């Protein structure tokens, strides 16, 4: 299966670093901030951002939660198979915190909507921002826009954008697959 590469390993790591710098520039104080990655595919992005932020802040401990949104989706009982959830790992309350929700690809906006619902079950955050690695414009079904965008991509709806993480972290990339691939 061969698709068109949108971001190769080098470009992807620059993009991730830039996203971390943008977060850093916007916030400066990280004592009340938490990164919340959406399971399963937002987690790798979230981990890179947290790691880079730790470098920029001389090793400040940045809270990182992993949130599964399966139980909050709006398509339950509307598809053939039941979605099996991933684990949620939120070791902190989000009450009064500044939250950055992280996902890999923003498409219809429905996952982010579920993510917001799931997040509010852990408290009332001060504010919530959205960070995505890839923003597929023109395909939104809900009014959701990111605050931090890695790369904007215009693709037709039956194409798929996939962020692939290699096991040893040496060959990560973002690829565009057409419908028949």
């Amino acid at each position, binding site marked *: 299966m061969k698709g068109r590469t949108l971001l190769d390993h080098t470009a992807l790591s620059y993009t991730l670093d830039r996203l971390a710098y943008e977060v850093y520039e916007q916030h400066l104080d990280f004592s009340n901030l938490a990164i919340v990655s959406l399971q399963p595919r937002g987690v790798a992005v979230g981990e890179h951002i947290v790691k880079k932020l730790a470098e920029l802040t001389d090793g400040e401990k940045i809270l990182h939660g992993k949130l*599964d949104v399966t139980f909050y989706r709006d398509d339950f009982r509307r598809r053939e198979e*039941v979605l099996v959830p991933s684990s949620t790992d939120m070791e902190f309350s989000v009450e009064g915190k500044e939250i950055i929700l992280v996902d890999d690809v923003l498409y219809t906006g429905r996952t982010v909507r579920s993510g917001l619902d799931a997040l509010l079950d852990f408290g009332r955050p001060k504010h919530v921002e959205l960070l995505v690695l890839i923003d597929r414009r023109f395909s939104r079904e809900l009014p959701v826009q990111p605050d931090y965008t890695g790369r904007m991509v215009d693709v037709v709806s039956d194409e798929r954008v996939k962020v692939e993480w290699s096991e040893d972290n040496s060959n990560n990339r973002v690829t565009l697959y057409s419908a028949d691939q």
Partner: protein
Amino acid sequence: MSKLSTKHLLGIKNITPEDIQLIFQTADNFKEVINRPIKKVPSLRDVTIANIFFENSTRTKLSFELAEKRLSADVVNFSASSSSVKKGETLVDTVNNILAMKVDMVVMRHPNPGAHVHLARHVDCSIVNAGDGAHEHPTQALLDAYSLREKLGELKGKKVLIVGDILHSRVALSNIFCLQKLGAEVAVCGPATLIPRHLASLGVKVLLDLKEALRWADVANMLRIQLERQDIEYFPSLREYSMQYGLTRALLEEVGKKDLVIMHPGPINRGVEITSDLADSEYSIILNQVENGVAIRMAVLYLLAGQAKTA
């Protein structure tokens, strides 16, 4: 993405080991949910579930109701003592009338074995068996195996002993099916009068001496003597039963089992099948079983409801 091999949960006998693993995997996530400050998810908000109990129940009914409410389902409760069943209505009619009021799923306990299978043939909704006579009690077996897995890891090769009134116990039969599907070895122990004939044909070891049985076992699941189901005297007295088949600390020390896991499906008759002290001891996972019961029932309801496509 995955699904159960069945539309109903009628018994453990009808489901596959893969179904059991899928239920466990889903229950892991619900266990995390019920330990949150807000213990509720909106998954089943458009689902209405009827809990139909033709037999008394405290724990199971409460556990199902909590599971349903934590999934945001609407719940209606119905118990036979205050119903038209007393006026001569048939089971199928009763349930069809409930379904006509737009109920999506039925959780039922019934004194007759097989009542759920009969119902499943005649009505159009998912049915969950919450106990049918002395036949099966699938969610209890699932939560037992889940609690054991949590304590001991994978159950393959583990030795589980079920002690007591096997003849009248739906918990025993469902546990035997469930544990065997997960690769565990199962033995039963109790007075010969309370062990069904042909039980050995299920591949279960039958032991009559509790000491010998405990030496063999990694786990002891102590059942209650179900006096309400016993139409004749199966043993001379409760006191004698307790002396021969009751679990005590002295007995555990005598057989040298320091790491035995003790389970009980409840309700406990303290001082009969198990001493009060042991029931609350470090050996016991009885309260973990109750906690896991809610997570397991959430998983079962979630997976069954998710298969019924509405749009």
